């Protein structure tokens, strides 16, 4: 060691960690003057003022909702036609619904799907045509001036639908390819396992389709279903954007005024969701998906806004308990997801996370402990205030977007709700106390009613769960699950 280096080491030892030259530098280079920043006291969250929606009835009987907003030159139109039996459809009827969803918009009596898409794109339209258990959905967002041409094309796609045989062959092929992908797709596998664990095999919500189901598809059945729904199903239409009330009404009357069905939707059958723990074996995957589901609430339950506050506190926001613990404290994940889903009959509260495969037992242990703590109560006033402020802001934000307002108005109306009801829900949330959220937690987070699904490499995950003393009710291979109804 050189004399200079010996001196430096001795000096460092005597003076702690900093050398004398470092201290000298600190003495001659003053720290820059940096101000401190004091935050204003937080204000109480306020419910945004919701706009006035004009309501009317088209000549055929469809309800029309109009919201005029002149600031941005866009027009959005949304329409729903109820499939009266959709909520109870199973088997062939359900498959006809899936086929119709794949075919709607692929051709009309006057043009094929390519011409239809080209014509819609040429007026600058964002559009969508879908069909599901709840019925037919038409969505349009277009620069002002293009709305008449675009809605005429969408009405033609629905009212003069003509599905070519080659399109059915394409759908059949796409479905077959989709089933082939399933064993590789950990997210799809996970979601399928959640569905199979929670929903009884004979319930319409059970996603029981398998590879063989794409055989024997017939365009005629989809066309007949569409005609039947248009004839019988109740229709609701909304127009949001830079059109005055009269012009908006004239627009939807011109193109959708003939919708005359009156039948509403049959109620969805209620089921008792399954519980336990399933492990989906997807070998060779370095990451694992974990979710835990608890029974939630029907969309008509007055506790829905409070349940949203509960999941915000638990897992749905950056400041939530599980995001803080799993990401910021333990570094186990990039993010935690939490949400509530509320159907007409029942709902679900879900926490989900992706973690490295070697960390599954640790992550499940943390999630379970946090759910148990929340079940016992103890939401703080600070947590509640954040959830309240977040809910108010989400509503304000939603009001800004023309393309999301139009379907929202239709959905509210179709469910017998309204913007006024939403405003009332928000006010009730803003008046809630931590005890109210604790009551909902006790209602939803019962430990015995949880359903866990883990998807990942069994060889890595199973020993962890065994060591943690977590029983596994079922281990299912990816290929088996993909073929299981």
């Amino acid at each position, binding site marked *: 060691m050189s004399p200079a280096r010996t001196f430096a080491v001795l000096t460092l030892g005597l003076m702690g960690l900093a050398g004398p030259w470092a201290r000298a530098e600190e003495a001659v280079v003053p720290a*820059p*003057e*940096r*101000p401190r*920043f004091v*935050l*204003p006291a*937080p204000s109480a*969250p306020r419910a*945004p003022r919701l706009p006035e929606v004009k309501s009317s009835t088209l000549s055929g009987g469809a309800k029309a909702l109009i919201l005029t907003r*002149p*600031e*941005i*030159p*866009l027009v959005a139109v949304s329409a729903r036609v109820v499939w009266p039996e959709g909520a109870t459809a199973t088997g062939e009827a359900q498959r006809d619904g899936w086929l119709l969803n794949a075919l709607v918009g692929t051709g009309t009596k006057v043009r094929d*799907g*390519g011409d*239809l898409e*080209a014509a819609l*794109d*040429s007026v600058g*339209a*964002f559009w969508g045509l879908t069909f599901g258990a709840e019925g037919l959905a038409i969505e349009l*967002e*277009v*620069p*002002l*001036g293009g709305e008449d041409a675009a809605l005429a094309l969408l009405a033609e796609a629905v009212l003069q639908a003509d599905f070519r045989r080659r399109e059915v062959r*394409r759908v059949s092929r796409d479905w077959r390819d989709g089933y*082939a*992908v399933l064993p*590789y*797709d950990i997210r799809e596998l996970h979601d399928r396992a959640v569905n199979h664990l929670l929903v009884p095999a004979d319930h319409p919500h059970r996603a029981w389709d398998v590879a063989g189901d794409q055989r024997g598809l017939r365009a005629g059945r989809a066309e007949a279903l569409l005609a039947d729904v248009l004839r019988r199903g109740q229709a609701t239409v909304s127009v949001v954007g*830079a059109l*005055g009330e009269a*012009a908006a009404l004239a627009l939807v009357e011109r193109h959708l005024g003939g919708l005359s069905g009156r039948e509403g939707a049959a109620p969805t059958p209620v089921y008792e969701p399954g519980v336990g723990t399933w492990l989906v074996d997807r070998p*060779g*995957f*370095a*990451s694992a998906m974990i979710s835990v589901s608890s029974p939630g609430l029907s969309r008509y339950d007055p506790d829905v806004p409070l349940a949203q506050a509960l999941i915000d506190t638990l897992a749905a926001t*950056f*400041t939530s308990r599980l995001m*803080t613990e799993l990401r910021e*404290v*333990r*570094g*186990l994940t*990039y993010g935690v997801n939490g949400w509530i889903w509320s159907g007409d009959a029942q709902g679900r509260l879900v926490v989900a996370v992706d973690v490295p495969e070697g960390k599954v037992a640790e992550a499940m242990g943390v999630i379970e402990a946090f759910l148990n703590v929340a079940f016992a109560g103890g939401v703080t006033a600070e947590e509640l*205030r*954040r959830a309240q*402020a*977040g*809910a108010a*802001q989400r509503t*304000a*934000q939603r*009001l*800004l*977007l023309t*393309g999301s307002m139009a379907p929202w108005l239709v959905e509210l109306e179709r469910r017998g709700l309204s913007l006024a009801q939403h405003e009332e829900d928000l006010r009730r949330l803003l008046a809630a106390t931590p005890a109210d959220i604790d009551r909902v937690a006790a209602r939803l987070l019962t430990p015995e009613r949880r359903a866990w699904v883990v998807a990942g490499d069994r060889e890595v995950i199973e020993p962890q769960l065994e060591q943690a003393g977590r029983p596994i009710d079922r281990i299912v291979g990816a290929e088996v699950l993909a073929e299981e109804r």
Partner: protein
Amino acid sequence: MLGVVFALTGLTLAADPAMDALRLAPLWTTLDNGLTVVILEDHRAPVMALSLRYEVGAAEDTQPVAGRAVGRTGKAHLFEHLMFEGTPDYPSGEYDRRLADLGADNNAWTDHDATVYQVQGPIDALETALALEADRMAWLGEALGEDVVKNQIDVVLNERLGDEMSDYVYPYYSLDWLLWPEGHPYRWPVLGTRADLNSMPRDELVAHHQRWGGPANATLVLVGDFEAEAALALVQATLGRVPRSPAPPPRALDVVGPGLIGPWLMVEDLAFPQLHLAWRTVPRGHPDEPALDVLAMVMSYGRGTRLDDALLYRRAVATDVSVSTANGRLGGGFYVFVQRADKPLAPALRVVERELERLLADGPSEDEVRRAVASWRVFFISGLEDPELLADTLGECLRVYGDPSCLAAELGRYEAVTAADVHRVARTYLNEDRVLLSVVAPEDARFALPESATVSPP
């Protein structure tokens, strides 16, 4: 004031309400400490959006730092994570909590060119958001412990793991590696390599903030329900008090040279074989950029577009097709993606090449171009509705065109594109210097393009 409130249908309409709405007039100034400020009033709802853009991105990661000729990749993005980890006055978690108390949401993103921090919330949150941004601009690093850095490295490694597990993201790690020449800063993934992340020292991250994180290297954009002058006063009282920073170092430079043409093979555990073609094009703001974007839509944007019809609808050659563009400060890329279900990729390549030959020989029709341009119009107008998106866009306008109110002019550039322009850029850029990449599962190696050399993503 955002847009122009024009007469409703049935009364008098302006000649082109879309263009009128896009003619924005934000307040635009530079503070004494060098911070650029853009403020746009939007009185549609009592909300605000803040975008604070630092002109540093992953391209700067590999610049030399003390003791290393080549810096560690992933630094700019990892630093973005650390910006949420606290200062002496507002320790870890406080930034998120203080904003959430008011109902405000926040996020951040990093690409090769910039690091952008966003806040969106009720108008009441504006002062708090500005003060918190000022605090971390001035004080970040003082409270940054080794444990916090280690934790966020783990979080980013998990983020990268998500990319690695994605059939649709990870191939682009290889594609960028092949498209950009040796030494080009866009070769490296924004998230960095695992080796670099695992060896990232805290001091290098703090130095990153000192070099690039000062007011003279940043642009603040505010959009919201305030009076512009009042908002500017709040900015002066917060970010305006952060001491002027030294001028940032020179930014990363473009590297001219050929990519690695291939054909290449990436072996990954994915469902269906993929074929990727990529060409180098032009940087963001280049006069040819709009015509290239229109070209991409002419090639693939649903039924009735060339590759979609040829590969998906007329013939069942592929299960998925897309054509996309990406343009950054130092250059751009034009990407074709085709996925086949358990079949060789060579026939799909032949179909793509045949369609390209047709396009290069005859060019697109005016109808095809009109369809694509109309779609661009709605992208621009709907972009006005979301204050957060709009704030980012104004910041990008300022960087690219030197003018935050570029939207109307930018749409004008797209609407001026002709079929001849699209034909010309196709012939100019879609040449033989293209990267060809097959991505297949280990058991599907037979489906790859013949004579491919293997590439591993960085």
